[in-house]
């Protein structure tokens, strides 16, 4: 149907690109939800919880994303749960993003100086009030730059799901290449599309980090 790479090919890739964006958004939202819970538990929870979350982060950060994706897709389907590629992709990417976001945000919570806890403490704020009004707003500002920076990783990580057959941008590129045999054009276009999604995020991440370091010199 498509024997050379032209405008229809670009359209085909663009549909894959929309799936890349969609999967990235799902991963970020789910990863942010669990990541925040884990970060709070890791920074402030009882010892056993900190230990458990720390272990989770250590293990996930020492496993290739590709293996996590394979475990979700092939492995779990044998246990009797069949995961369609989208579900396997979203779950494994979320498992991964949760570990990294939890680690990033724990660092941000711990970067708020101890003296801020003490000041809030001596104004009689409860633990939840201290978190809500004093610590988390400051941690949030510290976290903005690194978080946007990690969104770039999420977008790029979605490419791995091509290898379990989820048709996002990279898989669309593989399929198109099989039809047209023009790998250079196809994968260069694919790369340009990823770049278009990631570069603005990278830039704003840098700006946010600089703004934070500029304001902290006051």
């Amino acid at each position: 149907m498509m024997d050379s790479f032209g405008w229809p090919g670009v359209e085909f890739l663009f549909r894959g690109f929309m799936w890349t964006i969609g999967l990235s958004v799902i991963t970020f939202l789910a990863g942010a939800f669990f990541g925040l819970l884990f970060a709070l538990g890791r920074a402030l929870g009882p010892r056993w919880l900190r230990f458990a979350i720390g272990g989770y982060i250590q293990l996930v950060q020492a496993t290739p994303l590709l293996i996590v994706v394979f475990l979700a897709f092939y492995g779990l389907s044998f246990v009797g749960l069949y995961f369609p590629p989208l579900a396997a992709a979203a779950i494994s990417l979320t498992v991964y993003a949760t570990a990294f976001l939890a680690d990033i945000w724990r660092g941000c919570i711990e970067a708020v100086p101890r003296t801020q806890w003490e000041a809030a403490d001596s104004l009689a704020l409860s633990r939840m009030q201290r978190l809500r009004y004093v610590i988390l707003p400051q941690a949030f500002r510290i976290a903005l730059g690194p978080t946007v920076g990690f969104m770039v990783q999420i977008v790029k990580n979605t490419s791995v799901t091509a290898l379990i057959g989820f048709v996002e941008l990279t898989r669309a590129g593989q399929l198109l290449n099989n039809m047209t045999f023009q790998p250079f054009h196809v994968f260069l276009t694919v790369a340009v599309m990823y770049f278009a999604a990631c570069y603005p995020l990278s830039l704003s991440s840098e700006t946010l980090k600089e703004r934070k370091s500029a304001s902290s010199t006051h």
Partner: protein
Amino acid sequence: MPALRIEKLRKSYGALPVLKGIDLSVENGDVVAIIGRSGSGKSTMLRCINGLEPFQEGSIEVAGHRVEGSSSRLRELRKEVGMVFQGYNLFPHLNVADNITLAPRVVKGVPRAECDALVQQVLSRVGLEEKAGAYPDELSGGQQQRVAIARSLAMKPKVMLFDEVTSALDPELTGEVLKTIAELAEAGMTMVLVTHEMSFARRVATRTVFMHEGRVWEEGLSETFFSSPQTPELQSFIAPNLN
């Protein structure tokens, strides 16, 4: 009943004793200055008074609350005991007015409608009425410390604790903060100040306490305390400071 009573207070960090049996009593309206070398335990003792530091032995009773037990009991105490820190510790993400009203609003439930008046009232006591909208990083160190005092005043404390509040300031900025504290003293606020400012202690404090090696080494009325020190340790401590 005294505003503050400390009995046989002992604290150690691991095997290292910091406070070796402190007894101290402060009456309502007293202004007590605590002096001593660094490492003498004076800041640690002050932080024990509002429960920021746990201690192993002895008892502290302040503004009618015993320092002990659950965090909710400590919060009841902290509603009535203000604390001002060496590093100001203002909340950098909140402007001056929000720094001041945060605790009254969320801890005491003061309605928003009353907050403006509260802000103006406490800021006028520290002479910064026009700074309500400023952020901490737009203020000088002296102004930040006065805001920190105003923030503490907004909780209408019965006792205020000052932990070396001028030590982080440039010399030309300490005057404005000391003046604010002196005015609070005149208005009858009960205060305990850890300080390095000897002449200020002599002038403003009703009583002065000299701490040495984790103990109350010597104490007395400020007028006589500096002019006739009893122990050689106090004599050598104040000799370079007072002529």
